Structures are given as structure tokens and as C-alpha cells.
């Protein structure tokens, strides 16, 4: 079961990686101090950290320069508000029961509805880190990561286009995918998925009778 | 039959024959090359069959295509320069007709017997550049313009290797008269051995190679098809043409391929004749009339051989970028052709 590759072995035993992941958290804390608000480690799997929004670029620089994270994977955002339209899978004729609309953030906590999410990886140790930042709804701005990773340009354009988060210092913040005149920010949860509004989903267990079989009544739901 | 080809056909009859012959000499090679090489050879090389529906084995496909192109709408872009746009394909086709006039098909089956046939041919072949430039400019389309400009640069650059390659033949034949070149090749001998006459391809193989490469570039075939680089410029200078005008470009492209093949077989492969030694001829007087009929057939065969090489290279090679193409012409082909001339001259004087 040996593996031939053009360089030597890379440590892939889980314990080694966890050791590296813990070291990442420690090094980041020593680099940016209390701007690192929270962290979360899933053993053998991955590591999450959360930083303050005003330290977003600073954290990026620390990740690149001090933690050796030279590979920029992606940058995006998460809107933690549950969709007021539900999952659009319920019977549209039934009464709308109460929907739970509390905002519950995920790993590494959070206090705001919008959170930045980015991932960077080290090309030498192949260990990556997910980094989040709370973005306050009153001031939906974070600093641009372009001075940190040039590739962030397109990702920030897409995040702005989809969520409405501004990136201070971005030279050319314009639409990536949508036409220039498009209004609204589609990936926000309060922006409805128009296809489901136009034609409601007929139901999760959508069973039609087989052709030729005498069905009891038309349509399961 | 022989009487038809006797020398006392009235002048108007000869002119009619010449006009008809000209049309046939241009369209027949075009059609044959298109069917045999473009439809069938290319398909077989690409492990597919090609057109099979129209006629037995797709032989009527060409007529079907002609019919299709003819019945299309006569479009031209709004901002195109009308006169230039309409006349550009005709200019390109015109140059083909003017080229074929100088090719001899038999001892008497000629359109005209230029004393400076080679010079005339080389001069006239540049007229197509004008047509292409006109097409590129008049189309009011950036793609066409780019294609036209690329074509102009390329075609002018590759005129020179073509000229220089042919000079070696002229030196060896001591004449520019195409008819004399053919006769000399068939009647001649190599160092006294006349088993196959003296086809200039043997002694002028370098010249033949340079000529073939230059012809490939003159026809804007791959690897020199920058002007029509399909994956970049859609169709280059031909982008805005459709219907009958595109058909003329299409015919002109393959007709020119045919005519250049005819020229190559005239100058390098012995033209319409067969080596005299095979039949123990001392002159062509007895077989004049026969050769007037057989000569064109032999020319067609030799033309197909040369066209095969042109088309084979076209389907196999990727295309060169235009700066690489220019470098190749100026820094490689021209010095090689000049060297060929030098060596030929030395050997001609020595032997």
C-alpha cells in the first residue's frame, strides 16, 4: 500500500494534523491578540476561527505572513436568518405554522445575521483554516482582502453582489454574474426564490400513480 | 476526333474552346479536390465517413452544397462598403483564372504561350491579396479586419520564398516559358540516364519543398491559416459573407489550390508529358494530337498528387501564430531558397 509521488510523504495521520490545527489557533491568537474572538476545532476534521470585523484584513495578513497560509481557497458570506418563506416544501394550502426565526449561528459562534466566511490553506502542510467574521447590519462593510490575496477580487465582487456586503478598498466593486441594473441581493434569505413563489412546490412526497394503474385520486398531496 | 484538334479551327472556335477550357480548368480541380480531399480524405483521417447521403458515397454532395449556397439570401452588413464588399470575392476568383491561363495542358492545348510564363504566374498570384484585403476592410467587422490584415502580411511575406524557389527551376531550364520547361523535363536526362526524363523535383527538391510551403501559406491553409483562424476569428475575412459570395470564396480557395498544384506539377513534376524515353520518342510530332487529349488527364493526376500533400498537411498541423509565421518566412525560408539558387547556379555552370 505504498504511495508513489514526486516528493516525500506528507503527514496525513490525524493526530499530526490536529496538532498543526491547534498550533494555528495559538499562532493566530499571538498574532492578532483579542481580535480573535472564538475558535472551534473538530478533531481530525477541520478548524474554525472567528475574528472581529475591524480586524478582518489584519487577520488575513497574519494568516498569510505568520501562519504560512499562502493558498487562497475562497471568500464568501453566510446569512444566518432563517428564510421567512420557509423551505418552500410545505403544502402551500395548509396553514402556516409558526416558523422558528431565531438567528442561530454555527461553529465558532457569532452575534450578527451576516458573517464573512473565508478559507485559506497552507500549500506546504496542506492544513486549512476557515475564518469567519461578524458583520454588523448597521454597517455592512469589511476591509477588502485584495492586498492580502489578489485572488480575492472576484470573490468579493460576488459576495457584494449576492449579500450586499461592502468591501472598503476594493478598486472595482461591480456585479459579477447579475446584470448591472439588477436590484436586490439574491442570496439574502429575505430575497425570495422567485421560482418557488411563481409555482409552489407540490409537496415533499410527490407520488404520482404509475401510468395505467388506476389511481385513487389525482395527486398524492 | 483528330480533325477537331487540327490547327484549322476558326479563331472564334479556338476562343470558345479556351473560355470553356478555362472554366473547366478552374472548376474541375476545385470540385475534385473538395470532394476527394475535403469531404472524404479528411473524414477518413478523422475516423468518420463524411457525406454519404447525396449520391453514391456522397459524390453529389458538392452539387447539393452549390445548390444550397445559391439559394441563400444575399446579405451584406449595413455599414459595409458595398462596392468593395461585392467585388472582393470576384477579385480573388479572377486571380485564379488569370493563373490558369499560363498552365500548359498539352502541346497545343494551351491558353497562351507566354515567353515569360513563370514571371507572369508569380506576378499574378498576388492579386488575390488585394481581394482578401478588400474583403477584410469592406466588411465593417473587427474580426474581418484582423483577418484581412493578417492575410496581407502573410501573403506578401510568402511571395518571396515562392519566387526564389522557382528561380532554381528557371536556372535549370534556362527559360521562363512553361511549355519549354515541360518539354525539357520530359526530354531531358540526368547525367546521361534518361530513364525518367529530368523532372526538376529530383534536382530541385529543396526548391520544391520551399515552394510547397510557400503555396500552403499562399492558400492560407493550416499551418498558415491565421487569416481564417476559425477558433479565434470565426472565419476571418470571410465572416460576413454568405450565399453566393461565400461560394465564390470557397471555390476560389480550392480552385487556387488546384491551380497551384498544376503549377507545381508543371515546374517540378514534368507537366502534361511523360518521359520521352518510355516511348522512344525523339519529338512530339506524331503524338501531338494524342497528347492534346492525354495531356490534361496526366496533368489532373499529377495535380491530385500535389494537392494531396497540401491537404494532408492542412488536416494534420496546428496553426502558427503570425509572428512565428513571419519569422519562419523571413528568417528560414528565404535564406534556404537563396542557398538553393546559389547551389543550382554553381552546379549549372559546372555541369
Amino acid at each position, binding site marked *: 500500500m505504498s504511495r508513489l509521488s514526486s516528493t516525500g510523504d506528507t503527514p496525513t495521520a490525524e493526530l499530526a494534523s490536529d496538532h498543526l490545527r491547534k498550533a494555528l489557533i495559538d499562532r493566530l491568537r499571538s498574532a492578532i491578540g483579542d481580535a480573535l474572538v472564538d475558535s472551534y476545532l473538530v478533531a481530525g476534521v477541520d478548524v474554525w476561527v472567528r475574528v472581529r470585523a475591524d480586524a478582518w484584513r489584519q487577520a488575513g495578513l497574519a494568516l498569510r505572513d505568520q501562519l504560512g497560509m499562502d493558498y487562497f481557497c475562497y471568500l464568501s458570506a*453566510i446569512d444566518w436568518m432563517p428564510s421567512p418563506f420557509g423551505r418552500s416544501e410545505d403544502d402551500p394550502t395548509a396553514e402556516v405554522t409558526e416558523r422558528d426565526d431565531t438567528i442561530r449561528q454555527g461553529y465558532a459562534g457569532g452575534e450578527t445575521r451576516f458573517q464573512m466566511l473565508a478559507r485559506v490553506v497552507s500549500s506546504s502542510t496542506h492544513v486549512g483554516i476557515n475564518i469567519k467574521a461578524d458583520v454588523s447590519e448597521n454597517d455592512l462593510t469589511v476591509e477588502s482582502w485584495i492586498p492580502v490575496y489578489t485572488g480575492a477580487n472576484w470573490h468579493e465582487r460576488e459576495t457584494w453582489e449576492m449579500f450586499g456586503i461592502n468591501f472598503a478598498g476594493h478598486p472595482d466593486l461591480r456585479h459579477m454574474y447579475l446584470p448591472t441594473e439588477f436590484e436586490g441581493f439574491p442570496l439574502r434569505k429575505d430575497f425570495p*426564490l422567485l421560482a418557488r413563489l411563481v409555482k409552489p412546490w407540490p409537496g415533499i412526497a410527490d407520488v404520482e400513480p404509475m401510468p395505467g394503474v388506476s389511481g385513487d385520486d389525482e395527486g398524492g398531496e | 476526333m483528330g480533325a477537331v484538334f487540327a490547327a484549322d479551327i476558326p479563331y472564334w472556335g479556338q476562343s470558345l474552346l479556351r473560355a470553356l477550357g478555362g472554366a473547366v480548368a478552374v472548376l474541375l480541380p476545385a470540385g475534385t479536390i473538395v470532394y476527394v480531399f475535403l469531404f472524404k480524405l479528411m473524414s477518413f483521417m478523422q475516423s468518420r465517413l463524411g457525406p454519404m447521403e447525396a449520391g453514391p458515397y456522397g459524390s453529389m454532395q458538392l452539387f447539393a452544397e452549390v445548390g444550397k449556397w445559391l439559394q441563400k439570401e444575399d446579405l451584406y452588413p449595413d455599414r459595409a462598403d458595398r462596392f468593395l464588399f461585392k467585388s472582393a470575392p470576384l477579385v480573388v476568383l479572377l486571380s485564379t483564372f488569370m493563373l490558369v491561363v499560363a498552365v500548359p495542358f498539352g502541346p497545343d492545348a494551351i491558353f497562351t504561350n507566354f515567353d515569360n510564363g513563370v514571371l507572369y504566374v508569380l506576378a499574378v498570384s498576388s492579386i488575390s491579396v488585394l481581394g482578401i484585403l478588400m474583403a477584410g476592410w469592406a466588411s465593417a467587422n473587427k474580426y474581418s479586419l484582423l483577418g484581412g490584415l493578417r492575410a496581407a502580411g502573410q501573403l506578401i511575406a510568402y511571395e518571396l520564398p515562392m519566387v526564389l524557389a522557382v528561380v532554381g527551376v528557371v536556372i535549370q531550364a534556362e527559360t521562363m516559358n512553361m511549355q519549354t520547361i515541360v518539354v525539357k523535363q520530359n526530354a531531358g536526362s540526368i547525367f546521361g540516364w534518361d530513364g525518367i526524363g529530368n523532372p526538376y523535383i529530383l534536382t530541385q527538391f529543396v526548391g520544391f519543398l520551399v515552394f510547397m510551403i510557400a503555396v500552403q501559406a499562399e492558400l492560407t491553409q493550416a499551418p498558415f491559416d491565421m487569416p481564417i483562424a476559425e477558433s479565434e476569428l470565426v472565419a476571418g475575412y470571410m465572416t460576413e459573407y454568405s450565399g453566393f459570395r461565400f461560394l465564390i470564396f470557397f471555390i476560389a480557395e480550392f480552385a487556387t489550390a488546384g491551380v497551384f498544384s498544376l503549377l507545381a506539377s508543371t515546374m517540378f513534376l514534368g507537366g502534361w508529358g511523360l518521359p520521352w524515353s518510355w516511348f522512344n520518342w525523339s519529338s512530339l510530332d506524331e503524338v501531338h494530337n494524342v497528347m492534346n487529349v492525354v495531356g490534361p488527364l496526366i496533368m489532373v493526376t499529377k495535380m491530385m498528387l500535389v494537392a494531396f500533400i497540401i491537404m494532408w498537411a492542412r488536416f494534420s498541423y*496546428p496553426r502558427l501564430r503570425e509572428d512565428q509565421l513571419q519569422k519562419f518566412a523571413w528568417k528560414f525560408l528565404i535564406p534556404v531558397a537563396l542557398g538553393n539558387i546559389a547551389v543550382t547556379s554553381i552546379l549549372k555552370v559546372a555541369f
Partner: protein
Amino acid sequence: MTMIDERRQLSYIAAQAADARVNVELETEGMTLNIGPQHPATHGTLRIIARLDGEQVVWAEPSAGYMHRGYEKLTEVRTFPQITALVNRIDWLGSFANEVPFILAAEQLMGIEAPPRAQHIRTILFELSRIANVSLFLGDLGVQLGAITPVFMAFRDREYVLNLIEAATGGRFHPNFDRIGGLKDDLPKGWLEDTKASMHKLRTFCGEIEDLLFGNEIFQARTRGVGIIPKEVALQYGLSGANLRASGVDWDLRRDQSLPMAWDKVDWKVWTHPDGDCFARCWIRLQEVREATKIVDQLCDTVPSGPIMAKVPRIIKVPEGEAWVSTENPLGEMGYYVVSKGDTGPFRVKIRSASFNNISITPWLLKGVLVPDIITILASLYFILGDIDR
């Protein structure tokens, strides 16, 4: 290497000079050329706006989004099996490979692993989709450069792989075969022998393409030294897959992370190239196809027996949590960040597609190149529109 440095310097100088000419000389305006969205060269509806000075590019910018289908919004209203069907269509040439990271993320959240037989067959189908995808790239490479013959061989030999995928999954292009906990069905009888026979044919195809295309001097003249991406720039932009390995970075997600798939059970090699030019990228993909055929051969010999699906409930509710899984897809690194709240479907899915990052480098890369080189560079970066636009 000096040739490449020299070329790099020259193209930088040319870009600066071209820029200066366009700005200063008012008579000769630069021409703005629009390549696409309908164009024979781009793999779909990509539009490149290029400002030219003669034949040289002063500034070029791709304009994506003509095929944006709103995947990330669609996933918010679908269940996990429905998303599997949806996600096939991101990179439609190597479809099965799109499903795998998503299913693995869901399985990670559920804390289950597919049985070994399912893992093994997943890996076989993954590598088959890599072969299907990249062999088309090899044929298409010829067409972009003007050689019209290799593409027919590519399509002909790709049919073998597509037939295999169809025999196993029922779909040539969109298998929709992966399920949380395993695969939908077991393999048909005789499939493994057929696969090995087809792999032999594909190795022949690779040899043919190597002779016909890569050995050709014109091909080498068109691709060597063109579009050089240095290693640091590649990492900054998040280039992945063959593009990254062509710049000298030894990184392959199949080898460098432990996923419940079968790559660590076979012998195979990771290919890198120091040059970082178009030729390197194309050459590495050729070697990867060969390597994939060898992987499939070895995997077909060692398929373990057992169940094809773990015990999962019929309607699956994935527990609350977040997971990121990325795999070495044919186009590069494709990953899914799945946020689940305990429903039958995810709360948010972020799709990290390889071509998005790969193409984001083109504004930087295309400065100062000639128009034909635009096509060569785009061909060598190799993108699928569905992957850029999602």
C-alpha cells in the same frame, strides 16, 4: 529557464509600451474586441473584452455570468438527494465528480461512512469522470490551436468511458448516482472487465494524442513560454488542479488529505512541471489521464465485496453543523461548505468551483499577449462555464 524569464520580461515591457501608445497617441486608438459570448473558442458563454493595440492585448477582462443559474440559492430549498441531482450540472463533463464532495460533506455531518465497496466504486467512477472530462480537453486543445483532427479521436475514445458510466449509473452525462451513505445501485455484471478493456484503449488514445499533438513542433512553438504563471501568483489566486501543479506546486488533494475514498489503496504518481506555461498545463493533464487509467485498472482488480449502501433512514435529516469537503476534481479543487440545521436539506451551501478561481487570473495573465495567445491561454487554463458561473 532564461528563455521563459526573457519572455516574461518582454511581455511585461510590451504591455507597458502598448499601454503607453494607446494612451498617448490619439490617432491610433486601441481597438476593443469582444470575444464571445458566442464564439467557437470558449467552452460555453464566456465573454472576453479585450482592448487591442494592433494584435497585442493591452487589457483583457472576462465577463462571466451568462450562465449563472443561482445554484447557491436553489440549494436552500432542496433536499440533499435533490441537490445531488442539481450539482451534476456544474461541471457537466465530469459530472460524477461534482456529487462526491457534496455527499462526503453530508456524510461527515452525519458521522457515517459509506461501506468500503461503495467507497471503492465511488473512486472508480470519480476517475472515470476525470478521464471523460480531460480527454475532451486534449481533443479540444487541438481545435483551439488549429489542428482539427485530434478532437475526433478524443470524442471517439471518450465514448468508451461514457458507455461505461451509462452502464453503471444509467446516465452518460448526469449520473446522479451518489447517495448519502453509499451508491444508488451495485455494478452490473461484467462491468469491471469492460472497464479494464476500455482503459487499455484510452491509454492508446493518450499515446496517439502525444504523438499527434504534443510532439508537433508547431504545437510546442505555440504553447511553450506562453502564459507563464509563477508559483506565488498561482497560490494567491487560488489556482488548483493541473494549473497549480504546472507551476511547480506539488499538491494533489487525492494524496494530501484523508477522505473516505480509495485513492490511498493504489499506487499512483502526482505529476508536476516547473515551467508554468501553457505547455506544462496541457502536458500535465495528458499525464493525469494516463495516471487515471492506471488507477482505475488497479481499483478494478481490488473491489471489495459487501453492501453498497450504509444503513440510513429513508428520509434523511442531516444533523446540525458545518462541513467543508473538497476533492481533486478534473478541473481543479472543487469544494462544498455545507451548513445544516437538522433539516432534510441544507441551510446554506457555498460551492467553491475550480474554474472561478482559474479564470480570475486572466486579467493579470492576458496583459501584453497577442490575440492568438488569448485562445491558447484560455485553452490551457481549461474551464467549464457551468463551473465558473454555477
